[in-house]
């Protein structure tokens, strides 16, 4: 009995000790792969393809960071997390970063002690209803049954929205997007609510997407972005500037097609600094000089990733909207590489 207790204590201590490490970069390099938390399956953002490989817009951020840090975009261990398990997984050190359509909020940043490294998709919460219901506005939803993923900001927004409009509703709490989809299609709820991008992605997988409409009201701001733990600023900087490199690459016209050519040197000093042919930005961030080249090569710049995974040519069919470059009226604005 004493032996089992001792072994049990060893196991527990092993688990606890894992969380204490602060130097994430060294851990990742030593381990040889990046543990990245993603969703349990949201088409276009993070879902396994037919070959079983994870792909999507959020997955691409993980791959870019892995390419920058380890030189290999495939050296990523994807950990599927639900709305409820994601923060515990990150806080406990099970994953090195979380890239899972997670909304940047004050309390998550300060109270949960996480560091959001930027925004890779500006989103807002919407409602998906069957056309047959004849509902044209979210204000008509008094008394409706609403499917909602638990442990999300959308759950709180929903409560606020119905309360401020003095309406009743019946929440049906659900763990994952796949379950929500099944419940919604079975008619167990009238409405499915989550981020508008998630609704578009979900609707794209329906048999007849045209039978369902996304209501015009967007009831919240949902800036989605990757995040890391508080307390390791070097690691946070790597994730932040990898994302910025992808955004800046689009702004300066660096694509996966011309990057090899540009990496030999151009007459634009900003491009040269990003791609490491001028200055020593790589050294400052604790990596080698062509870290950004590898990150961009992993899947292309921000615009390429958007088009490939969730853009208008894909079944998900999202327009750039707020997610266009600042030069084109959007909100994407990378600080200068200098």
């Amino acid at each position: 009995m004493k032996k089992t207790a001792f072994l049990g204590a060893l196991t527990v201590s092993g688990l606890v000790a894992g969380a204490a490490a602060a130097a994430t970069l060294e851990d990742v390099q030593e381990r040889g792969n990046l543990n990245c938390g993603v969703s349990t399956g949201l088409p276009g953002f993070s879902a396994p393809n037919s070959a079983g490989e994870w792909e999507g817009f959020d997955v691409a951020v993980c791959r870019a960071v892995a390419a920058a840090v380890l030189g290999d975009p495939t050296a990523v261990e994807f950990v599927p997390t639900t709305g409820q398990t994601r923060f515990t997984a990150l806080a406990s050190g099970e994953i090195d970063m979380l890239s899972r359509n997670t909304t940047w909020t004050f309390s998550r940043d300060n109270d949960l002690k996480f560091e959001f490294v930027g925004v890779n998709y500006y989103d807002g919460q919407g409602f998906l209803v069957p056309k047959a219901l004849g509902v044209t506005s979210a204000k008509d939803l008094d008394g409706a049954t609403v499917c909602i993923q638990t442990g999300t900001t959308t759950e709180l927004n929903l409560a606020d929205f119905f309360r401020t409009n003095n309406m009743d509703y019946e929440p049906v709490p659900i763990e994952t997007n796949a379950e929500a989809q099944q419940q919604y299609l079975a008619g167990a709820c009238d409405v499915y609510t989550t981020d508008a991008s998630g609704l578009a992605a979900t609707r794209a997988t329906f048999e007849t997407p045209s039978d369902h409409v996304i209501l015009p009201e967007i009831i919240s701001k949902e800036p989605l972005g990757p995040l890391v733990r508080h307390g390791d600023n070097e690691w946070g900087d790597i994730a932040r500037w990898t994302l910025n490199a992808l955004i800046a690459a689009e702004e300066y016209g660096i694509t996966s097609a011309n990057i090899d050519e540009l990496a030999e040197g151009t007459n634009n000093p900003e491009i040269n600094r990003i791609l490491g042919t001028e200055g020593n930005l790589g050294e400052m961030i604790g990596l080698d000089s062509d870290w950004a080249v590898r990150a961009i090569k992993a899947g292309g710049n921000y615009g390429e990733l958007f088009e490939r995974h969730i853009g208008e040519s894909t079944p998900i069919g999202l327009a750039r909207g707020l997610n266009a470059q600042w030069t084109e009226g959007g909100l994407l604005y990378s600080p200068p590489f200098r």
Partner: protein
Amino acid sequence: MSTLSEPPKESFRLSMLIYDTRYRSLTIQTVAMILLVLMISWLVSNTVQNLENLGKDFDFGFLGQRAGYDINQRLVEYTSQSTHARAALVGILNTILVAFLGCALATILGVIAGVLRLSKNWLVSRLMAVYVEGFRNVPLLLWIIAIFALMTESTPMPRDFREGGDASMLFGSIAISNRGVYVPAPVWGEGASLLIGVFVISLIAIWAFRRYAHRRQEATGDILPVFRVSLALFFIPVLLTYFAIAFANGRTEQAILATGGEAGLTLTEYAESQESLNVCLIPGTTTALNLEKTLRGADVRYNAVPFNDEGQALEGFQVGDCNVLSVPATQSDPIIAEAEGGFAPVPLVETIRRGNALEFEQPYLGGFNFDGGIHLRNSLIALWLALSLYTGAFIAEIVRGGILSVSKGQTEAAYALGLRPNRTMNLVILPQAMRVIIPPLISQYLNLTKNSSLAIAVGYMDVRSTLGGITINQTGRELEGMLLLGLFYLVLSLLISGAMNFYNSRVKLKER
């Protein structure tokens, strides 16, 4: 002569701690104790250290903060403005509800299946064997999800119940939909307290009669028809009281008064003549129930303006809070006669009944869902059925084992005395089998209670889903939340096993 040699003097040496059997066990226990304390203190300090590294403190203050989320099944009042502690309480009550329902149904199922499994009828005993093996050997989570899927996929949507849809309500009052089962809800009217009083008295009478019958049988050997008399005592006084009250005041007519219209209009005509229909009523009364039923029947849109009692409702009507009010027919003329100024109430054509001591509120189709009645959500039903069927299979085996533990001689002796098989079972076998059945039954109840934490799989908002799920997620207090959750299950389990042990000590073999 003899020399007195003293025995060698006992002196304590350190090696005796290991080699002397008198001290060895003490040594081992002390060392084990020290190791255990060291281990625990190391675990605690490690946790504290790691929390510090993460920049987190240990604080239960989050329980007082605003929760911000809604819960569908609430046994106590709760809104998104309530605190996390309140949300936890709602979850706790939901856990207790499903655990209680589950234990009750599992016991019934288990006892029936356990007895029938011993049946001499081949078909019955094999069917029970299939039930027991099927449920015992498939994980509980699968059963929960399977029953839930069955309920959502194979039942009609609420809108199928509309005219032209292909679903209809069971007996006109129970709706089985893919959002849950809606059953009529009782509404207590005037005289309800008398009705309940009579019911309690008849329960006491049943208990007293059974006691008397038992005594009499012990003394004289005569057997009274306990079951039939109990049944009669259970139903007849209550039904008599109910009809007496119904006869006295149930048929009292209520007039419907309206302001700003002409006399002699029907509800529909009046509603068309007005911009909006505001109805003063007292929620939860049979009058309000009947009034709303009439309003729905007339197919008019209205707003309910709630009041606490009839006096306030009348005042509200007089000052214009609403334009429709229902009053007893005898009071309507004085009200009309006393009206002055711009306030000019007129009676409408329709009248309603004041209502009996007990009326039932039928579920009816609202905008998206059924309204009214009691809503048993699919999540509750699926969890309840799965927990009961699963645990019932284990209880069946315990009951079977208990019955088999009573020697065959007991049955034969009872038969020889001329007892019929069901009396033999009830009076001879089961009382003896209970001694064997109760202790393992306690652990099945505990299992069921703890297994109810699988509720989140079907979105049932138990304490694991509220405190242990959403609250932890929104506040980031994993350690505190999980500790509270663990504490709650510990206390609940200890309470259940305490109560069951008390029962066990009453039925176990009394040795004198």
